[in-house]
């Protein structure tokens, strides 16, 4: 097996104003021609830095300090700008992380694909335009001719990622570096995109270096897995062996954390409780008076239980959640919380009732005021409802942090000083401040690393037991649902298409759509032989 890409003892650090921060220390990674290799690790593990070093696109301040990167026998470190330009696009291509921000917003997507061909003089202007359409078609875009003339904002996230794959394939590279190519997308779209990328790579004999934080994704796609932690490669091996007999403690931790690989719920599932807390009946919402974003949705939730509302982007799940907490008024139907129809309450009555249901948002980076200290953040609901004296609020803040397992030293910190997981804990502490009965959690873990996801999910389960909370859990990720839900409602196109106890819905789904969602959970191929590689 000849190595196409060989990274030897690579050391990379970032030179910042405050000093030199090491990012990668002595990493060794080899990719053979046509092989798919996954690099797995958390944020800060150095996986993305390693990948970017291999295409000469380290972020500002990043510097290769030692080691070598060879591609087909040619040393890449120390190449000039002009030499790198010849390597990029034709030898090594990149599929970036977030398709929503990775295309030039003011240029037609067809032109952006054709640009690769023009830059490398692989085609004339006219031929490039035609070939771009063909590349878009190969990347799985229907009506490619029409799409080529559209701008990025006119395409969905999934389509944009396909455009980026077309861009990566355009120069017929021998290696594609895919940096978390699907983590910003819905699960079913994720699967389609990865299937497609894998198929195209196999067809053209292109090798793929897949960067991911999800061991489940790596297990499905890669022949070999490289596990990175704190800038070092801690374990490398064939995918099946590595998953079956992980040697390094960190790999075992990752395996245990990945929701996609978990087979058991975090806690035995329970039937509906005796006391109904929330009843949603026949609610609908239309923003323009014609199309219904949410249409005739009904469900109920009992005290102390978890109902997962599952669906993809555009299914109406978030609008439903917003109606439940009174942030949006339904066009039809009622929402009854503990005997009160919140759709008919006055402003002040609704405000008083709000103490009892709280929201936890998806993005802990955006939902905390960056100018507040954590104490300000956590006690904000108390101040809003004039609860307690200043001293009492301080005591309560420490108590709340303790509940979410954050040290009380965090009280004086600003959100920017906390990691993503710590921020989400602070956001949960804020939601708990007023002793609510119901938490509406809108994708609370989807912005977090898998290992952190597992910690937050365990925290939510523990809090539910201690405080008797009911959860309405909004998510697109059935792997997460499988771990914590008692009941599941699957939404599609604004309607609930399947609804029932979690085991029934997951075990024997009646709807085709639910089956599709289940099949899209990564980590299921690992039981079968890994994909064939050269």
């Amino acid at each position, binding site marked *: 097996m000849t190595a196409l890409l060989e990274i030897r003892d690579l050391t990379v650090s970032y030179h910042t104003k405050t000093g030199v921060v090491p990012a990668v220390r002595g990493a060794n990674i080899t990719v053979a021609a046509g092989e798919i290799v996954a690099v797995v690790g958390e944020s800060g593990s150095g996986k993305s830095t390693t990948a970017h070093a291999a*295409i000469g*696109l380290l972020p*500002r301040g990043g510097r290769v300090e030692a080691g070598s990167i060879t591609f087909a026998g040619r040393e890449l470190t120390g190449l000039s*700008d*002009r030499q790198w*330009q*010849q*390597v*990029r*696009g*034709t030898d090594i*291509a*990149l599929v*970036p*992380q*977030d398709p929503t*921000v*990775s*295309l*030039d*917003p*003011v*240029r037609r997507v067809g032109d952006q694909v054709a*640009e*690769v061909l023009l*830059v*490398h003089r692989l085609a004339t202007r006219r031929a490039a335009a035609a070939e771009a359409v063909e590349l878009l078609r190969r990347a799985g875009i229907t009506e490619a001719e029409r799409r080529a003339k559209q*701008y990025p*904002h006119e395409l969905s996230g999934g389509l944009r990622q396909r455009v*980026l794959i077309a*861009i*990566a394939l*355009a*120069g017929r590279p021998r290696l594609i570096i895919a940096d978390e190519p699907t983590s910003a997308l819905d699960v079913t779209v994720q699967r389609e995109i990865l299937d497609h990328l894998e198929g195209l790579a196999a067809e053209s004999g292109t090798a793929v270096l897949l960067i991911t934080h999800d061991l489940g994704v790596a297990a499905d796609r890669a022949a070999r897995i490289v596990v990175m932690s704190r800038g070092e490669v801690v374990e490398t091996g064939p995918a099946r062996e590595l998953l079956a007999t992980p040697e390094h403690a960190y790999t075992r931790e990752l395996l245990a954390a990945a929701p996609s690989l978990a087979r058991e719920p975090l806690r035995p599932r329970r039937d509906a409780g005796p006391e109904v807390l929330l009843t949603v009946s026949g609610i609908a919402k239309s923003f323009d008076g014609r199309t219904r974003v949410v249409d005739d949705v009904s469900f109920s939730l009992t005290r102390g239980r978890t109902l997962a509302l599952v669906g993809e982007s555009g299914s109406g799940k978030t609008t439903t959640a917003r109606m439940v907490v009174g942030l949006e008024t339904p066009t039809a139907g009622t929402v009854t919380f503990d005997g009160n129809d919140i759709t008919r309450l006055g402003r002040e009555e609704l405000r008083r009732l709000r103490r009892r249901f709280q929201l936890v948002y998806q993005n802990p980076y955006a939902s905390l005021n960056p100018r507040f200290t954590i104490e300000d953040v956590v006690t904000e609901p108390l101040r809003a409802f004039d609860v307690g004296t200043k001293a009492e609020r301080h005591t309560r803040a420490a108590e709340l942090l303790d509940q979410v397992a954050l040290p009380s030293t965090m009280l004086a910190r600003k959100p920017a000083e906390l990691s993503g997981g710590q921020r989400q804990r602070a956001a949960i502490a804020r939601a708990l401040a007023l002793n609510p009965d119901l938490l509406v959690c809108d994708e609370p873990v989807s912005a977090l690393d898998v290992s952190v996801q597992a910690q937050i999910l365990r925290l939510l389960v523990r809090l539910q037991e201690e405080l008797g909370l009911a959860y309405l859990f909004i998510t697109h990720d059935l792997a997460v649902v499988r771990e914590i839900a008692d009941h599941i409602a699957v939404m599609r196109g604004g309607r609930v298409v399947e609804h029932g106890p979690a085991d029934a819905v997951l075990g024997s789904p009646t709807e085709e759509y639910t089956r599709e969602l289940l099949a899209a959970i990564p980590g299921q191929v690992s039981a079968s032989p890994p994909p064939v590689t050269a």
Partner: protein
Amino acid sequence: MTNGVPRRLAQAVVVLWAAFTLSFVILYLLPGDAVLAKLGGEAGTTVTAEDIARERAAYGLDDPIVLQYGKRLLAAAQGDFGRSIATGEDATELVLNALPSTLAITGLGLVFAIVFGGAIAIVGTYTRSRWLSQLLAAMPPLGNSLPPFWVGLLLIQVFSFQLGLVPAMGSDGFATLVLPAVTLAIPTGAIIGQVLAKSLRTQLTEPYIEVVLAKGASRARVHWGHALRNAALPALTLVGVLAGNLLAGSVITESVFSRDGIGRVTASAVTAQDIPVVQAVIVLAALFFVLINLAVDLLYPVLDPRLSGRVTAKAVSGV
């Protein structure tokens, strides 16, 4: 885009009406009397109360204020601002005759400003040389803090008196345009350069730039082909605002370079409290401003496809 145009036009009419009304109110509230100034100007003549009354009637100044306003507004809507009290010429004609010369220096000034500012921003963000980048980054604050009249005098001193390259003053021929236009362009170009450079730096850190680089594109292609067009919007918004400033700046510049033009007409009309002329100038300036901004608004969707069919508030907030 098509939906926006009638509304924009309606807004433009409102702006013009407001400019007219505001100037009317302010000018009539001011102390002093143009008729007295005119008649009292000649030494040795005796002015009777009848003379004053006759002059007032001739200019329609004896009508009740509301009637005066109504009449003038109606006339102004047809382009008639009355006759200059000082000279008796038609005010509109007076202003329109002065317009071409002023438009020439503001237009050329705007072109220079965009070229200067653009060059500073593009070279400053493209160069790998740290000292050049820092030198260029220091230009905008410098350019903006130099007083235009001083810059004008300095330019005359160097380029006209010492080097003899261009005439120091006068209104004839292209050569006389250069120095006034440069004087006008320096502060304007400085602002454009600063905003464009900042906007370019922001764009160059966007993830889509990495994708373009990963295609194998050169830095020049990234700069010209992608970052610049995305960075142009905030700068374009600014051009709309600055075009109005250029017109205002022409008052000083025309005085320094002894040029005929709106600036000088304005200066003498204000001194003489020549209300019809001042109003004609104000409404013309408002019209100029409105037209420039209308053009800028219509340009947004051409530069950024996301803005077609939508109000441009988003682009404006991008500054």
